[in-house]
């Protein structure tokens, strides 16, 4: 056993040292000559804009991509990581940005795929596997049955499974690529407790996040990437928040939540007594022209489910929806789109992007009726449409005909948002719109959203990020366990009030 390392030692020797790492994709230099050190018992934050090359570095460290050049040393010894297995054997584990899990397998199988515990005949020891998986899930306070099929879990639960999977590998180097993106503050706190534990156990942790508060809360070291280069690294206590932002973006970022005063008009969407057999009950809301209605709650509170029902993906069991005073029956997404209601789903990989198709084809997909004439598609129109939204959303891509699958995570998210805005809806429902989007672009998305509200769009914004909810919403509805737990006006709304409504206090529940 190595001795416990004090987290205060200012000069811990790095376990992992990467130098001169480069990686080129066709047409893009994703990484050029970057360096990174990871120290035992410490968390190093890796920050950078969307497409800066963070995930590419993670994939190199986990043996998924091979670097074009550079060296990787572990404990001072030069290593190569030709396969994912090799990386795992060297004690490197990662929670990837796009979680790669198996829908048809159980939670325990997902956690232990590739390294299932064996009995003495070399066969899989199912009892041990379930017991250990349950122990890990318990450790991260995730109440998920190890026998549940992955396809039956919510996005946040899947994410927790991905975290459990990373923890199930006894590793010395733990990489987390935007682990908090899908989580609400409660799960985030749990995750931070785990990170603390890992730190105390002497693991070296690489933490990637676009949320600076988190970085300041748990990291000691930082490295900043910009356009595939490392533009700064060091101890976090020696820099300020603004220093980091400037390093990352190359300029000052103006106001975080650029909310404009929109004129709030008449009621556009009215939902009354909306129920679903399992997911939500008696939800009623009114949404006005020019309004941004925040929908806050813990993960699993039923917010996304309400939105999916409004969009016609699932069927409610009771309740009515009126749009501009007329009752509407939405039976499918195409009904919703025709009525002028669109939904930007949370999980871009599964619901949002068609990765083999180009950026243009993705953005124009729900707008083909508009861009085509007499049933014939017009490429020039599609390009014009795509370019317009790509520019407004600050999309970073080598070309508009690039397949979406080759974009960075945050840029894929921008494509998905752009695709829905391009349909010029009356009501837009944004589910975690800035998940995985960097600070600079986040401001761009917020500004755009605000601008659209001014132009008369009605917006429902589901978010688990309290600052975003407080900064952007005119009114906030809080949901808890499928029911409405509060309706708040923007004026005088505090984070505490939101959290109290979302968790429910004990006396009321009794």
């Amino acid at each position, binding site marked *: 056993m190595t001795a416990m390392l004090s987290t205060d030692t200012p000069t811990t020797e790095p376990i992992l040292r990467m130098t001169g790492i480069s990686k080129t994709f*066709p047409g893009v230099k994703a990484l050029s000559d970057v360096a990174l050190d990871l120290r035992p018992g410490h968390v190093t934050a890796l920050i950078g804009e969307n497409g800066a090359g963070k995930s590419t570095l993670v994939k190199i460290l986990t043996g998924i991509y091979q670097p074009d050049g550079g060296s990787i040393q572990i404990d001072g010894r030069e290593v190569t990581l030709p396969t994912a297995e090799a990386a795992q054997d060297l004690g490197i584990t990662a929670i990837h940005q796009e979680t790669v899990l198996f829908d048809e397998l159980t939670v325990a199988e997902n956690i232990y795929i590739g390294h299932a515990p064996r009995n003495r005949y070399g066969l899989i020891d199912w009892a041990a596997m379930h017991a250990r998986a349950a122990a890990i899930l318990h450790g991260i306070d995730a109440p998920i049955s190890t026998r549940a099929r992955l396809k039956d879990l919510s996005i946040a639960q899947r994410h927790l499974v991905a975290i459990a999977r990373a923890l199930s590998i006894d590793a010395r180097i733990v990489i987390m690529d935007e682990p908090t993106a899908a989580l609400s503050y409660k799960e985030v706190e749990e995750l931070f407790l785990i990170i603390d534990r890992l730190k105390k156990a002497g693991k070296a942790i690489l933490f990637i996040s676009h949320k600076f508060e988190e970085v300041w809360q748990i990291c000691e070291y930082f490295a900043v990437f910009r356009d595939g280069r490392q533009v700064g690294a060091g101890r976090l206590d020696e820099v300020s928040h603004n220093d980091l932002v400037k390093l990352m973006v190359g300029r000052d970022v103006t106001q975080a939540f650029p909310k404009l005063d929109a004129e709030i008009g008449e009621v556009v969407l009215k939902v009354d007594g909306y129920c679903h057999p399992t997911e939500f009950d008696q939800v009623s809301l009114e949404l006005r022209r020019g309004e941004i209605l925040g929908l806050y709650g813990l993960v699993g509170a039923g917010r996304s489910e309400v939105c999916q029902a409004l969009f016609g993906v699932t069927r409610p069991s009771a309740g009515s929806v009126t749009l501009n005073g007329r009752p509407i029956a939405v039976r499918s997404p195409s009904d919703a789109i025709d009525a002028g209601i669109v939904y930007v789903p949370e999980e871009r990989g599964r619901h949002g992007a068609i*990765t083999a*198709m180009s950026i243009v*084809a993705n953005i124009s*997909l729900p707008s083909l009726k508009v861009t085509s004439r007499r049933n014939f598609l017009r490429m020039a129109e599609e390009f014009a449409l795509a370019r317009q939204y790509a520019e407004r959303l600050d999309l970073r891509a*080598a070309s508009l005909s690039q397949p979406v699958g080759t974009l960075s995570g945050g840029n894929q998210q921008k494509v998905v948002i752009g695709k829905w805005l391009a349909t010029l809806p009356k009501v837009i429902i944004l589910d975690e719109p800035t998940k995985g989007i960097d600070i600079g672009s986040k401001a761009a998305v917020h500004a755009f959203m605000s601008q659209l509200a001014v132009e008369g769009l009605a917006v429902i914004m589901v978010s688990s990020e309290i600052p975003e909810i407080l900064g952007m919403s005119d009114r906030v509805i809080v949901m808890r366990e499928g029911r409405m737990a509060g309706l708040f006006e923007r004026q005088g709304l505090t984070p505490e009030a939101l959290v109290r409504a979302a968790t429910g206090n004990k006396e009321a529940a009794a």
Partner: protein
Amino acid sequence: MNTIRSLLARREALLVLACLILLVAITARFPAFSTPRNLAGVFNDTSILIMMALGQSAVILTKSIDLSVAANVALTGMTVAMLNHLAPGLPLVVLILVALAMGMLLGAINGFLVWWLDIPAIVVTLGTMTIFRGLAFVLSGGAWVNAHEMSRPFLELPRTVLLGLPVLSWAGLLAIVLAALLFTRTGLGRAFYATGGNAVAAVYAGIDIGKTRFLAFVLSGTVAGLCGYLWVSRYAVAYVDVASGFELDTIAACVIGGVSTIGGVGTVGGVVLGALFLGIIKNALPVIGISPFWQMAISGAIIITAVVINARGERVKGRIILRRKELPL
């Protein structure tokens, strides 16, 4: 240098190259093979495969498969041949419309079962493949319809030369143009790609993926129906085992042409070249004097090679790169 490499990364260019190499090799021993006349003959010979492979590719793009196309050819071909035999006065136009309608109906049955009953396409079409052939047997009682039982116009249409090419070749060319328009210039074509590329995202984008698959099957069936007539007319005979195993050739042409078997990726150009590649081999091997059994083994080896190339292409993701002349952002 870089442009050459990126050009080579494209399946179409690779196939053109492969076809050329093949032609050069064959011509080295049999110069007569590459005369324009013979090449036009090869194209004419491959026209039916091209048409049906294009229909098949629409289905595969939506992440389904149609195993019943060859049986469709047999049943439709038998039906029109018998009609022609029993009612020689019936105008050819009517027979062709019957072939189209019947093929469409058979395709619609497949599509309907896949759409409404949610049965996997491979199961549905494996079933209908047997049923269609069974019906062809029931209809004919196992008897053949031979050339002398068919009317002259019925036999002559595909062979009629128009502007230097037989009608059969023109049908193939027309199919290519229509497919290119459908795949790249219409909402339905885009829906094929979206449905196979990410079905859930397609649903969210307002695409009815069930209907899209249904239409892909209808398309594939209609083309097969037309080919049913073309086939019995060209070979001047109709019997139950007509086009036996031909469904595999259509799938092979798609796979060789770079259509991803998991849906969402593929081009008309690739499919046509894939079909031509198979066509050249089929026509050349007998010339070189290789036995039919070797021909089957060679075709099989080529299919496996193509699948391997596809799989590698998917891994490096370089194959689907759309970087032609870029419009700057």
